[in-house]
């Protein structure tokens, strides 16, 4: 029956067969969901992606495709990759702060003279290793993107 068409078949203006690959994941009450996914990936590509997945993983895959499509529509330049870059930056900042705090702890310990000479040597080695810490992983990702149009968080 035409009224039982899934959102995908309604959008594509076609009959919805009984084995329609989209029908389980794009119910007719949410047409926008399929529209977003179709706009970014295309119905044909989504169908191919779902066909190679086992049944029990398809629902999750569709959810995530919908999320990524939404991100791409909201940010047509970076999509959900922007979040990844922000997280890399966050990790970099956290590691720097952690290294700094650990240096402070090690220096405080050594000033207090805790534990004897061997302990002091270990603490100074820890101070040195923290001072040598130069996390540079975010730079690897940043260089993949054009220098002429750096995203604000690259500066």
């Amino acid at each position, binding site marked *: 029956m035409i009224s039982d068409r899934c959102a995908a078949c309604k959008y594509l203006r076609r009959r919805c067969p009984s084995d329609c690959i989209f029908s389980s994941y794009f119910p007719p009450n949410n047409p926008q969901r399929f529209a977003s996914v179709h706009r970014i990936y*295309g119905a044909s590509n989504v169908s191919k*992606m779902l066909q190679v997945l086992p049944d029990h*993983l398809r629902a*999750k895959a569709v959810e995530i495709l919908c*999320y990524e499509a939404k991100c791409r529509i909201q940010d047509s*330049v970076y999509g959900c990759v922007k979040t990844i870059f922000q997280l890399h930056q966050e*990790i970099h900042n956290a590691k720097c702060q*952690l290294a700094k705090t650990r240096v402070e*702890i090690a220096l405080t310990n050594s000033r207090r003279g805790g534990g004897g000479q061997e302990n002091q040597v270990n603490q100074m080695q820890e101070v040195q290793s923290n001072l040598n810490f130069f996390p540079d992983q975010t730079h690897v990702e940043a260089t993949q*993107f054009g220098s002429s149009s750096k995203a604000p968080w690259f500066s």
Partner: protein
Amino acid sequence: MGSGSSPCASCRLLRRRCAKGCIFAPYFPSDDPHKFAIVHKVFGASNVSKMLQELPIHQRGDAVSSLVYEANARMRDPVYGCVGAISFLQNQVSELQMQLAVAQAETLCFQMQQDPVALPTQIDQHQHQHHHQHQDHDQKSLLLSNSDFNSIPHQYFSSFASPSNVIQDPLKRESLWT
């Protein structure tokens, strides 16, 4: 690059003449056919063309790079794609925040030990408040910036131990799953 010499990777794959103003040519050179192949496989040439046409020229390079990144992630992990990487990185951030909280608590202990007999007077309370506010601000600056990431619905990560997890991220050069 659309000038009559060799066609760009896109036109080569699509088996068409690479026109002078080919929208793909600046971003998909002929010496890297794989780049366009995976973008085409995930997004489709037509969709990529429309996306690029809607963007100003100075943003198209970054858009292509992010599309390539997403397409790579999707090829490596057909279920979770980029969201898999986001989840992994969020876990890293949480772990680092925990370690930082422990380290900062240790620092605070040292400071309290240095002045163990001081009873909280009004002045000292004021100083402590300033100190804690400063530390809270540092902590918040880490936490607040994560508030955007909390907008990723948690149901995406609830059943994360999927068979498609075993992947390597060549861009990051380390395994995403430990």
